[in-house]
């Protein structure tokens, strides 16, 4: 009961911060204030909020779950590659987006594309692809809230109520606080979950009687691969460095880059970002691996048993039985289970609140979708001219309510797995959209037709990968089914983790072909006017 009360109190604090931010901005119904906090965020809020926006539930729950099954490779695949690529893109792309936004008043990336390439409809196509790729995040956030609250409360708060509570809390502070409320809540939440990892590490380590024996036991067991990267090829590992390209192409991150008061706010963010990643991911990945030795947690033992059966009998199992076993091995809750077992009740509650903080990072996506809808559709197609700026903010708020209610209804009716998979496609899709931003900002020869070709390729590519994954059944872990071979060479394979292309993640050919299409099609099509090009590439700039 105590952890539940602490988490509920935490939700109350979050709502208060959002409403407090609303009161600070009261009387201002301007679009820039609601959607961009008047481009006024200071260095601390900018760093914490940007980092919190990027770190979704996956950073805590997913990383430990992935490490539970795959070992320490999780950190190299997802954390250290992000530690290099994300701050680099913030420095190179984020600062340019900020400067152009400040000078020309842009609020969304599509506005920048429309102006840069002198186009209206290509911008609408880009908006549609971005929105479709982003919506699953909102749904998964509501689902994550329901699941986590149910786990933390030991089942006292059922899934439907937990999901409703989280949806209501997020909706309230996004509705009232807009970007200012979201940024302040994110800052509070990020501060909380930055402390989470270290405390969880100490408490669980203490409870398990230290980690040395556990690590030695894993090293001496058939699970010793958890402590190395022997089950992952270097090529596959390399292809993961393409995934963080998605970060800067996510509309909620691009939009967030516009909220800084001064460009110098990027400096500390860029430098400290890798350290923040280490502080969050290192304990979560390590604890995920250590969960394999939590012999006194029955739920974890059930997962391990299911994994052993799957590994030993997979070839002889019926597909339904294999899927059922796979579902049992799902491990996103291992950290919560470890905390419930080893942490005192009050601390489990506080740490549960830390997990909730990560789960609720969905607020930025809701606000971004609202911003994109009102700016790229409502205002662009004369809504602002006809009904005024206040009506645009009201439309944005109505959109927040509509989207959150829709996400909740879907979360109650459809299985979570669908959206987990959709998010994996979204990372690939947004990474492949990154060449659009790079071309718009750095290549004067880029054209709207090049942008259209890249965007259509991304849409088709994501649908194609999803169709292949659905059509070819997943083989047992460690094996691969040939999907398309040529001259004895396997070009496309279906592995347990999804489709691979020449041993690489699909994100690699997706990004490279997207960039190639931008180059080739732009070279063959008419350029924007010299005046526009001169504004983006001033002489001596």
């Amino acid at each position, binding site marked *: 009961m105590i952890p539940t009360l602490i988490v509920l109190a935490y939700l109350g604090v979050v709502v208060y911060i959002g409403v407090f931010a609303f009161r600070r901005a009261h009387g201002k119904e301007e679009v820039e204030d609601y959607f961009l906090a008047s481009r006024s965020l200071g260095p601390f809020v900018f760093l914490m909020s940007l980092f919190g926006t990027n770190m979704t539930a996956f950073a805590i729950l997913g990383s430990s779950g992935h490490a539970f099954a795959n070992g320490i490779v999780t950190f190299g695949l997802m954390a250290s590659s992000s530690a290099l690529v994300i701050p680099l893109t913030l420095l190179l792309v984020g600062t340019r987006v900020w400067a152009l936004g400040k000078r*020309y008043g842009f609020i969304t990336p599509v506005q920048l594309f429309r102006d840069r390439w002198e186009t209206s409809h290509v911008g609408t196509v880009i908006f549609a692809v971005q929105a479709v790729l982003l919506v699953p995040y909102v749904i998964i956030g509501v689902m994550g809230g329901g699941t986590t609250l149910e786990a933390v409360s030991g089942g006292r708060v059922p899934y439907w109520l937990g999901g409703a509570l989280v949806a209501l809390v997020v909706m309230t502070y996004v509705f009232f606080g807009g970007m200012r409320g979201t940024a302040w809540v994110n800052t509070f939440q990020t501060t909380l979950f930055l402390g989470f990892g270290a405390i969880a590490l100490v408490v669980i380590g203490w409870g398990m009687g230290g980690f040395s024996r556990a690590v030695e036991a894993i090293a001496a067991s058939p699970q010793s691969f958890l402590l190395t990267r022997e089950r992952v090829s270097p090529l596959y590992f390399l292809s993961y460095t393409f995934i963080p390209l998605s970060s800067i192409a996510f509309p909620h991150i691009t939009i967030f880059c516009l909220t800084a008061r001064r460009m*110098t706010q990027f400096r500390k963010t860029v430098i400290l970002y890798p350290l923040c990643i*280490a502080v969050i991911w290192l304990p979560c990945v390590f604890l995920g691996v250590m969960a394999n030795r939590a012999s006194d947690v029955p739920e974890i033992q059930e997962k391990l048993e299911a994994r052993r059966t799957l590994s030993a009998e997979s070839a002889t199992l019926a597909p339904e039985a294999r899927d059922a076993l796979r579902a049992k091995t799902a491990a996103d809750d291992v950290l919560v289970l470890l905390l419930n077992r080893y942490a005192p009740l009050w601390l489990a509650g506080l740490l549960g609140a830390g997990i909730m903080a990560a789960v609720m990072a969905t607020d930025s996506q809701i606000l971004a979708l609202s911003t994109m809808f009102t700016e790229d559709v409502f205002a662009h197609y004369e809504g602002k001219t006809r009904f005024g700026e206040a009506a645009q903010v009201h439309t944005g708020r109505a959109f927040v309510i509509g989207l959150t209610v829709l996400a909740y209804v879907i979360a109650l009716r459809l299985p979570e797995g669908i959206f987990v998979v959709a998010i994996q496609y979204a990372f690939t899709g947004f990474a492949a959209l990154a060449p659009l931003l790079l071309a718009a900002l750095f290549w004067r020869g880029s054209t709207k037709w090049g942008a259209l070709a890249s965007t259509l390729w991304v849409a088709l590519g994501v649908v194609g990968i999803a169709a292949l994954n659905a059509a070819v059944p997943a083989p047992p872990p460690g094996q691969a089914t040939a999907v398309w071979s040529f001259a004895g060479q396997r070009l496309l394979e279906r592995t347990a983790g999804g489709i691979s292309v020449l041993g690489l993640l699909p994100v690699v050919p997706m990004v490279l072909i997207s960039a190639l299409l931008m180059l080739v099609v732009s070279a063959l099509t008419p350029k924007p006017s010299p005046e526009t090009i001169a504004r983006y590439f001033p002489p001596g700039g």
Partner: protein
Amino acid sequence: MTDPGPAEKDRRIAPVPATKMKTTLLVLATLVVYVLHQDVWFWTSARPLVFGFLPIGLFYHACFTLLCSLLMWLLVRYAWPEHLEREAELPHEDRRP
């Protein structure tokens, strides 16, 4: 004691104008760090266990994130796009289509 102000607080990471040589060196440094992410030398080995419990592969990548932070400090100091700050201060012009 007076408040040093934001400019003074940022002094240690204040940008230094980039030269062609510096730019080349920074690009090279970034490429080297990218290559260092592919640490094939610790691929199949868990030992030595750093502090008695941390597999060497995990410890290496924890150190890699610190190296990334150092690289970012160098980039901010020596490749900061100062001209963008000046451009942003030019007269505002609403270009939202």
